[in-house]
């Protein structure tokens, strides 16, 4: 809230600092390197997205505890499957942190079904969650400036686009190509800008929030 405090005594400033509606930025506890394959059907529309999300070392260690049932020091895909299941089921509430739509057009966005083909890999240091998100309706990338965003608005998870094999178009029509922009992170200027967004923005569909969000990783699908 804007109290217009500059002229008020320091006490007031400090107290209002404590009282002010605060940044909702939780600090991240999980870091993810994200790789995405954009899947196309034969008609040239996007039919789904296949993610491979690699977790940071600490979260990986936390997540796998107690799962090595045969105590052989290795984690098989079978041993990890219950965790993979919990992972994808829990992601539902967060819209899989994946938003597909046309930039600047709030009404056009893709709706994902429950994930399929999900499993976890553990390389001894990091876990990678693989899963495919089918779309309920194929999404024609030519209907506008199509973009996919991967991010966590609550910032519990810090998503980064991976350095290698970041985005791949699978079965895409000739002339389609991906482009991507990395999230810039919450620098103070960005945060201040975000602060101008009225609070009721939270009530908007996440798809819209996603496309207006500054701290998002944006993958554009350009079909010329």
């Amino acid at each position, binding site marked *: 809230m*804007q109290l217009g405090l500059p002229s008020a005594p320091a006490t007031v400033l400090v107290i209002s600092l404590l009282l002010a509606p*605060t940044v*909702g930025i939780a600090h991240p506890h999980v870091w993810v390197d994200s790789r995405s394959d954009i899947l196309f059907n034969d008609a040239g529309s996007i039919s789904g997205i296949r993610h491979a999300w690699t977790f940071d070392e600490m979260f990986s260690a936390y997540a796998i505890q107690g799962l090595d049932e045969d105590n052989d020091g290795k984690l098989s895909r079978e041993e990890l499957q219950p965790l993979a299941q919990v992972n994808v089921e829990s992601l539902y509430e967060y819209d899989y942190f994946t938003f597909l739509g046309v930039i600047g057009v709030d009404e056009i966005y893709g709706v994902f079904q429950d994930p399929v083909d999900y499993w976890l890999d553990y390389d001894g240091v990091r876990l990678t969650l693989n899963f495919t998100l089918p779309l309920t309706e194929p999404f024609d990338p030519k209907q506008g400036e199509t973009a996919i965003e991967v991010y966590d608005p609550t910032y519990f998870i810090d998503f980064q686009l991976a350095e290698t094999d970041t985005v791949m178009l699978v079965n895409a029509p000739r002339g389609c190509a991906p482009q991507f922009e990395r999230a810039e992170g919450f620098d103070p200027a960005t945060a201040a800008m975000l602060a101008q967004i009225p609070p009721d923005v939270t009530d908007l569909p996440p798809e819209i929030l996603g496309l207006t969000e500054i701290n998002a990783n944006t993958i554009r699908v350009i079909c010329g």
Partner: protein
Amino acid sequence: MTRTDHRRLIVAIVLTAVAMALAPEIASAASPFGVARPEASVAVQSGPLAGMFAWIAAKQSAFYQGLSGLVTAFKTDGTAAWALIGLSFLYGLFHAAGPGHGKVVITSYLVATGETLRRGVVLAFMSAFAQAMTAIALVTVMTVLLSATSFAMTRATGLVEIASYALIALIGAALVYRKGAALLARVPVFGPQTAAAGGPAHGHVHVGQAHGHHHHDHAVARGHVHGPDCGHSHGPDPADLTGPFSLSRAWTAVLAVGLRPCSGAIIVLVFAFAQGVYGIGIAAALAMAAGTGMAVGLLAGIAVGAHGFAARMADSGNGWAAAGLQAAEFLAALAVFGFGLLLLGGALQGGI
């Protein structure tokens, strides 16, 4: 401070109460990957200090990421321990400096109860260390002794969290009852004798020291009321001032806040155990608590100072100020109660 300043304080408190009433619901605490619980938070940021909090969040995030590398380094290089402990301390410090429910609750509690500066700082450190001990106990039992899965660990954390929030709500309810009675006593109809007005009831108020739990839940922070000016402390019971620290009362608050372990500390502990260096994980968790205790102790000092100011106003014979102080203490009590309920509701909604 001038009288105008005083009025501004009152305005700030009232606006804060309004903001609190309008605050969006706290996001449910369900975990995105089903393991590890995020802190309650709201998704949209606002307020003139958004930039500062963003900076704090970024620092904290950087420190946290540095921890894993240092734990790994410690396996081969013992001197990494000092860097790890130093970084953990900074992480705790910045963690507590961000907005958070714990700080809100503690600060409000201190304003309502009128603890002294020294006691406030002690409370800040005790609750921070209680939090670290909860994390260490959880990981030692669940991970080290039982080889529990992360699902079980997450459920256990959730249960402890709910207990913590319920306790906060209970403490708040008790404070509301006491402060409400004191306020009513001011009204001639209710007051047995006008003398009550001075309000022994609220104890002396030195404003709050927030103790620290580090709240990780940022978000909530929006409105709490700990009003600076609440306190009136005039005339507290002498026994209160000189008597022994009310340990039983303080312990409840310490427990309420300290029960809720920090996800960051838990993850670092589990990671250290997985790396075969659990001891250094414990050292890191304690260093985080020291940092958190320091940050919240500072806030506590500020709150105590503001409260003391208001109390002097009240003492100067300004009946209006005395009433305001009492009202503010009541608001602070309401804040503790309200946040307890909000957090509890959010945690229950998020499931265990």
